[in-house]
């Protein structure tokens, strides 16, 4: 199968424990529909989980919601069919250029074990864009089939 029909689905989840699973269910459904391989679907799921729990934990979004968009599309003559996911909150934002690269050796020696989410997202997805400011954060990530 080479061609793909475009589709876009929107999902709103509450900031509440485990609601990232509602987002991963959408990744699985659309990933299978577009015939993305199982392992790639799993990678997108993991990236989406990280983006959701970041919004849950760090954004302090006043509406207690996270908005997701799932887009199946294709680049003509380019890298072909993809699944793109937006994860957006209306929280206080952050400066993505100031993120410190996490190091396992340091994590094993300090009380700070966290800080892996964005690195995991960037490693598992093909393209990642982070837009963040005083009105919130949107992370747009794409994986080719």
């Amino acid at each position: 199968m080479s061609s793909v029909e475009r589709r876009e689905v929107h999902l709103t989840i509450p900031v509440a424990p485990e609601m990232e699973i509602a987002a991963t269910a959408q990744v699985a459904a659309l990933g299978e529909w577009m015939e993305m391989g199982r392992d790639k679907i799993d990678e997108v799921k993991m990236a989406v989980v990280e983006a959701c729990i970041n919004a849950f934990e760090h954004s302090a979004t006043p509406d207690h919601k996270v908005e997701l968009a799932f887009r199946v599309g294709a680049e003509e003559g380019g890298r072909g069919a993809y699944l793109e996911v937006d994860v957006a909150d209306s929280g206080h934002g952050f400066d993505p250029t100031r993120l410190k690269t996490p190091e396992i050796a340091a994590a094993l020696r300090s009380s700070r074990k966290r800080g892996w989410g964005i690195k995991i997202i960037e490693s598992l997805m093909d393209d990642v864009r982070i837009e963040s400011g005083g009105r919130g954060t949107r992370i747009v990530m794409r994986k080719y089939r």
Partner: protein
Amino acid sequence: MSETLKVVVDRPDATVAVLRTDGYINNTGGEEIAKEAYALLGSGVNRLLLDLERTKIVNSIGISILIEILEKLLDQGGKLAFCRLTPTIEKTFQIMGLAQYARIFPAPEPALAWLRGESE
């Protein structure tokens, strides 16, 4: 709810322990594992195998708790092995460099052999 992680501890002999997880390793899941791991460590068992066959999903909060367990084990001269990771969980551990400090095996047997010092 149903996402709650279950952990079963198995003691094939006095020196090693296997922790079999079933479910999502998130913050609460990681804490369940840590509770069992620290109880074992307290009773002198510092070679642990985490068998994730029934765990299809983890998040970085859960993994950070696993790093905490790894740190404590290494501090006490112990070892940590993982087996039966999904390709994505294995890839994530590689990305993080965790695979430099804990060994990843496809199946429990070679993992136990390594923990017992029977193999490199």
